[in-house]
Structures are given as C-alpha cells and as structure tokens.
C-alpha cells in the first residue's frame, strides 16, 4: 500500500511536552502535526487526508481541551480524541468519555499506553470513515429510488408479503414485484436481510407496524 501514514494531531500549550510527545509519536511511524492552542487547531484549514486522530491536553488557557471537544462535536467531527492530561480527576475523565473521547490518559504518559490508544483511535477513525463512506453510498442509492420504490422498500423491509404491500399501496402484486426487483437492484441488496441492513445503515425510517 502506498497510503500515507496516519496523521496524529497534537495540541498542548506546553512546548516541551509538545516536542516530546511529537517525537515519540513520530518515532512510532505516524505523521504528527502540532498546535499550541485549541484555536490554532481549529483554524488549521484544509481537509484531512486519510484517517487522523487528535491527542489533546485538557488544561490550556483560553479554550480548554474539553471546550475543543465540544466544538468538534458541534461540527460533527468524527476525529477520535485521546486526552492526555497532567491533572486528571474522575469527574473530568467521566465527562470526557461520555462526550465520546477515545481515551483519557494522565501525564507522564507511558509510551505503550499512548501509542496503543493512538493505534486504536486511528483504526477507529479509519473504520468510522469507512462506515461513513458506506452509508453515504447507501444513501445515494436510496436517493436514486423513485418515490413509489421508496414506499415499496419501506414496506418490504417490514417483512410484509408482496400481496399485502399491494393491498396497502392499492396496486397489484405484479407491480409490487416489479418495484421490489428494481429496489433490490438499485440498492444492490442480495437478499431481504441485506436490504433490511442497508435500510438501517442509511437511517431510513421504519413505518409503523400493523
């Protein structure tokens, strides 16, 4: 593979800590981009190429680590965050984890812990981006369905028979069969189970069961 190494963002206001951690992470083969404040990180611009994670200090002047986490959440970022803090207490860590942090480590941070967390985070990032890509694809396929086909699909995934669907929609079974075939093809589903899974993945709402 000629994919670039995964990118690790590092935000810490302490220069020595930044340099040390950056060196360590780089020595493990990652690409590292360092920022001395949350604002600097937010203003970095450019799209992320490939999976990336964020190693984040908590106690920082101006915007703290937790503040940044909130900001990223609001922007629907899926970048996993590994918190590294010199002052860890339980309430803080609980807050961070609840808000979706990948991990919460205390300084001085052990290399195995850190690199392990980063590895996991990067993998998750990759997985998440893959999942997102897939969902987007499914959504696109769903978007390509006609309104009638969508109706049919919604009923099909409930496990109704074609006959029932025809009766509900006020059409003949044959029409339903045709629509069904078209849905299966457009959605690239191999089986009913597949279709159901895809529907769930795309977040398609289920109609009320009768």
């Amino acid at each position: 593979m000629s994919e670039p190494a995964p990118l690790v963002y590092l935000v810490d206001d302490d220069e020595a800590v930044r340099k040390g951690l950056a060196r360590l992470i780089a020595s493990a083969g990652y690409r590292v981009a360092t920022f001395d404040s949350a604002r600097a990180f937010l203003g970095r611009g450019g799209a992320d190429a490939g999976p990336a994670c964020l190693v984040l200090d908590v106690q920082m002047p101006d915007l703290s680590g937790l503040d940044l986490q909130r900001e990223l959440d609001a922007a629907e970022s899926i970048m996993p965050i590994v918190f590294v803090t010199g002052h860890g207490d339980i309430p803080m860590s609980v807050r961070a984890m609840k808000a979706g942090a990948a991990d919460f480590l205390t300084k001085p941070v052990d290399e195995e812990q850190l690199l392990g967390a980063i590895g996991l985070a990067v993998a998750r990032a990759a997985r998440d981006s893959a999942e997102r890509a897939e969902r987007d694809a499914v959504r696109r396929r769903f978007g390509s369905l006609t309104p009638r086909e969508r109706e049919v699909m919604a009923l099909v995934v409930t496990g109704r028979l074609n006959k029932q669907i025809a009766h509900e929609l006020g059409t003949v079974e044959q029409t339903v069969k045709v629509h069904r075939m078209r849905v299966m093809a457009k959605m690239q589903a191999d089986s009913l189970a597949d279709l159901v899974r895809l529907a769930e993945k795309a977040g398609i709402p289920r109609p009320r069961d009768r």
Partner: protein
Amino acid sequence: MKLRTDLRRAACSIRESGIASVSKEMGVIAGTAATRPALRRLLWFFRRSELLVPLVFLAAGLANGAQPVATVAPPAPQTVLIIDGERHDLSGFRSFETGIREVFASRPGAIELFVEHLDAGRFSAAQSRQAFARFVQARYAARKIDLVLTFTESAAEFALAHRSQLFPRVPVVLAAVSHEWEGARALPAGIVTAPIEYDFRGTLELALTLQPDLREVVVVHGTSDYDRARLDEARQALERFAPRLRYRTLGQLSLSAIEEEVRRLPRASMVLQVSLVQNAEGKPIDGRELAGRLAAISAVPVYAVYESYLYMGALGGSMFDYTALGRAAAAMVQGTLARVDASAIRAADPHVSNLLVNWQALKKWRIPESRIPTDAQIRLRPLSPWDQYRYQILLAGIGMIVLVLLIVLLLLELARRQRAEKTLRESEARFRSMADTAPVLIWMSGPDKLCTFFNRGWLDFTGRTLEQEMGNGWTEGVHPDDLALCTGTYARFFDARESFAMEYRLRRHDSEYRWIIDNGAPRFAPDGAFLGYIGSCIDFTEHHELQRSRQELAHAARVSAMGELAGSLAHELNQPLTAILSNAQAAQRFMAAETIDLREVRESLGDVVSEGKRASEVIRRMRALVRKGEIEIAPLDIEELVRDVAELLRSDAVMRGVRVVLEIAAALPPARGDRVQLQQVVLNLLMNAFDAMEKSPPGQRVAAVRVTPDGPAALRVTVSDSGSGLNSDMLDRVFQPFHTTKREGLGLGLSICRTIIEAHGGRLHAENNAGAGATFYFTLPVDVARPARQT
C-alpha cells in the same frame, strides 16, 4: 701778639676743658679779631692739622653755645648770688629757695648758688648796709658772678644801690618785690622782676565762705613803709566788700592794746593780720610771733596772707606761694643766663597764691568742714594713723582681706565637697534602691569586661549569690547552646564601646531555662573616660514563644497553601516529567530502528536534560516556600521573587482560566526583607485573587501584579483581580484573623500577610478597583546598601 696768645689758650682749652670755655675763648677771640687780617690769621691757624680733629666739636660748640656734649667734660657752672633781704630762718625765703633749687636740680652742676642774708629787719641802719656791701665785695672779689637774684624789696633796694660797685653789668633778677615798689622806680636795663602779689581779696572771700555771718574785719598792721604799702593793698580789697563788710584798722595802737582789742572782739568779725614789720612804737616785730599770739588770744578767727602765719594759728587765707615764686624766679634766671627774653617768662604766672586752711583752727572755731572750698588746701590736719601709715595699713588690710578670702574659699570648698559627697551618697543609695526594686535584671561591668554588680532582681531570678555571679561567674547560668553567641556578642560590642541587645537563655532558680533579652550600654565618666557597661534584662520567654508560634503559624500557612496548590503543583511537575519520559522513550525507539537517526536521538536527550532541570526548579520553588526557619533579612530581587511565585501558580492559573499579568518596572532597586515570607504574601494574594474571580465569566479573569518604585526608599507591590470586589466595610475586616468568606480554611492568610508586611516596615491595604475587582497593595523598604539594579 695777643691773638696768638689767645689762640694758644684756645688750643689748651680744647685739650683740657670743654667746649663751653672754648666757645667763651672763641667769643673773646672773635670779639677781638674783628679785623680782616686777623680773620685771615685765624683761618691760617685753623688750617694746622692739630686742630682739624676738634674742628667738628668746635663747630658744634659754637652752634650750641653753652650745651655740653656727652663725650666732652662738663663745663664750669655759672655762679648765681642770691641776696635775701631778711633773716635766713623766715619760712618765706625757705620756700623760695626750695622752689629755686627744684628747678636748678633738673640740670645739676649747671649753676652754683651762693646765698647772703641782708637781715634788713634787724639791721636797718645805713652803716650795716655799707658793711654788708663791703663784705659782699670782699667775699666775691675772686669769683665771677654771672647773675644776682634778690629776695624782698630790701634786698632789691640794696642791689640797685650797690650794683655798679659790686656787680657791674651783671644781670639782676629782683624777686619778691611788690608792684608799687616796682612802679615807683625806673629800673635800668638788665634788671627784671618776679613780683609778689598778695591776694587779700581771695583771703576775704575765704573768710566769708568759712564765716558766712561775717560783718566786720579788724585789720592789724604795722607802720613801716612796707607795712603801709601792704595796708593800702588790703584796703583796696576791703573797699570792694563794702557794704557787706565793715573794717577798722588797729595799726596805731601798741602791741598790748592791739592784743586787748583783739581779745574782746565780738562775734561775726575777723582779724586780718597784714604785714607788721614795725609797729607804732617803732619796735621791729616778728610777724610770726605776733601771729601766734593773736591767734591764741583772739576772740575771732585770724586770717593772713603769709603761709607762716597759718602755722602759728591763723585760720587761713589766700597765701602767697613762695615756692612757686622761687620756681618762676629760677626759670627767669636760667632764661636770662641763656640770653632768652626774661619778660616772656615773667608773664607766665603772676598769681601764685594758694587757698590754705588751718584744720586745727577750723576745729577750734567749730567751723563745719563742709564750708571749706574745694580748691583750698588743708594744713595741720593731724595725721591720723591712716595718713601716717597709709601704705602699711593698706597692705595689712589687703593682706587681711586676702587671708579672709582664702579662708572663705576654703570653707566654701569644704562645704562644696561635703555637699558633693552627700549628693554622691544619696545618688548611690537612690540607684541601689531603684536597681533593687525594679522588676528587671540589672548588671554592671567595669572596663575589663568583668561584672561588678548584679541587682536584687538578677540574684533573685538566678537564685545565686553576688559572689557567685561576679566577674564571669554569671556565664555559668547561660544555656550551653547560647553561650558562645552570648559571650562573643558581648565581647565584640564591648570592644567597640557600642550598645547592644542580645537574646539568650538563662537558667532560673528552678533550673528552667528562660529566654532573656539583654540590653547593654556603655558608661562614660563626665570627662569621657570609659567606665564599663550597664545592662538590663527581661524574661521574655512568653514573647519569644509567641514569636516562635507566629513563625510556626506562618510556616503552617505556607504549607497549607502548598497543600491547596498540590494539584496544580503536581501538574507543574508532570509537564517536564512527561516531556522527559516521551523524549527518552522516543530516543529508545530511534535507537531500535534499522537506521538510527542520531540527530533525533541527540535532540531527545537534550530535551530530557533541560526538562529535568525544569522539574528541579519547580521542586526548588516549592521547597523554598515551605522552608521553615529563622527569618533572614537580606537584599531581594523583587522581580525574580514575583516571577517565581507566578511560575508556581501557572498551572493553577490555567486550570482556573485566569490570565496572570506581570508589570514590573525596570531598574528597580533591591528590596530588603525575608524572601520566604514575602513570597508567601504574594502567593497568598494571588491565590485570593484567583478565588475572587471564580464566579467571573472565563475570559474576564485577569490577575495583575505590578511593582513600581514608591519614592526613593520604597517599592510598591499591587495584586489586583477582576472579580467581584470587596464590600466597603470589609476593606479592613478581611485582614482580621479568622475572617473568611471561603468554605475551607481558617481565614488566617491575610492576617498573617499583614503581620509579615508590618514586620517589614510596610502596610498592607485593600481597595476596590474603579472597574471590577479589588487591589491589594503593600510597600517594602529599599535595601540601602546597594544602588538600583541596572537592567
């Protein structure tokens, strides 16, 4: 021929005698050598060498006339013959002669005096005159007379009559002649007079002064021509006093009749005895004797114009001063002999009378002394012992006074000494009683550092005796740990003769060691001599303990503050530790790679080292703050102190979202104080500032520390926050102990801070800001030993 003889005589004179005779000879020569050829010969004579040397003296001698030169033998005296007209023993002539000799005494040897007495009073016949003249001629045949001086009119008459016979061409001075005598004759040339004037007027005035109620003057006089002349003078004077004074004369009576008359004279009258040379009976009279008899028997005071009568009993008068006349006559003699115009001398002083008063007569007639005119001379005053032995009495008196003074001085000195001793004893007693009753321990030492005195208080405190403590015995009670410092300090200050204060432990009588503060001061005698030391001590154990407690409390507060900061301090340490660990682990990884990136390894290790130092700095700051120990006053760098505290609080500030701003003036002088305690203050104030801003919105939390000079001798430190501020009634109450608005803590922090600042000589205050929040500020003294730091 005569000229040559004369010249030879002149040469002899130069060699043998003096210039005076030379000049006389030369005068003669000059007189005889009036012709020109004679002059030429004279000049030829002088050219002879043997006369060149005395030529100078000759010239001087000619110029000076009779003046002798010191190096030449004195000239021969001039001869003056005095012819006295009366007896030798009359006081008038005696006075006259005294006056003459007085004047001639100023130039001794210049004049030789001869005196002859005509005694015309007793020898009146013409034959006696002739005999006298022959006598004089015979006597003075061989002698050259240079001047004749006569005394009284009779002598004057004689001189005039026999002048050509006895002393032709000799100048004559007629003394003691009256004006009318002179007026009745035309005196030939070469004759001058020194007249008498009898001051009857002055006598009468004196009489009126002494006897203010005087009415009548009885004049006793004689019948000779002389007497009549005198009477006329008296009458003239008496006329002037009419009508106040009447007068009558008794001249025609016999002596006994006169005496009878005088005996019966009424009060308010006087007797004026005018000259009585010859009375009505034709007898020659001794005027003096008569004066005495009259004075004795007269019923009233007798006045006269002759001084001799005064001594016989006359009360007084304006009496002729024969001595003055003698002086004037002598001056005239000198002047005449020196060829000076005698008349000029004569004009000098015609009035030679003195007011004389007879003291005994004054007393006899009971006339008060106060009536004596101030210009009158008093005669016959009995010499009191004072008069006679004036100098001896004065000396004795002075001697006595000196003796008495000495005695008085000695007595005073004795009294003074006794007083001083008494004062000294009293002051000793007072000192002792004060020393023993004072509730302090008092000691004294001599110039040799050994102690000489301990008061009751000291002895009671230590429970020892004076003998035990004297000298260096007191050191046995000093705590062994303090002994070296105590004796060392004492010795050092003693040598410098300066006051000191030291603290040490002294064993009390119950064997407990108590903290003593000992103040010693040097003693000097009034003359500046060093006498030793005197000191007082107080048991201040409780105070000492209190101070210790305070220090412990401050320490505890510091530790507590550290405790509060533990979290952020741990964070402070964690940063460098993290960096160290990361860098080290990174280095390990680099080393394990296939191609070792040595540069990375080196950089990593370098960061490890510097971060290790950073960590130790944090530890240092912490340790400095929690240090427990004695206060050390030293010069301080305030900027460094403040920055250290700010570093310590950095993590805490970040954690609480506070921005810390430091504004420190440039080139600040070093302050003076205890570093640990001052850091404690700044730390406390900053932590309070952080607390104050807890409720403030983040982003508006700013704590500022400012250091500026406050005048030339102090620095001002302010710590301000942008929090909620203080209530105005709390501005001072916050400094009270146990005052707190926080849930935790004792609330001692600010009170301790205030105590610390006050101990540094400053004040700690709080104020609300114009905007949000409050400011705490304090001042610190500048360390004066060093100049301001240069940045």
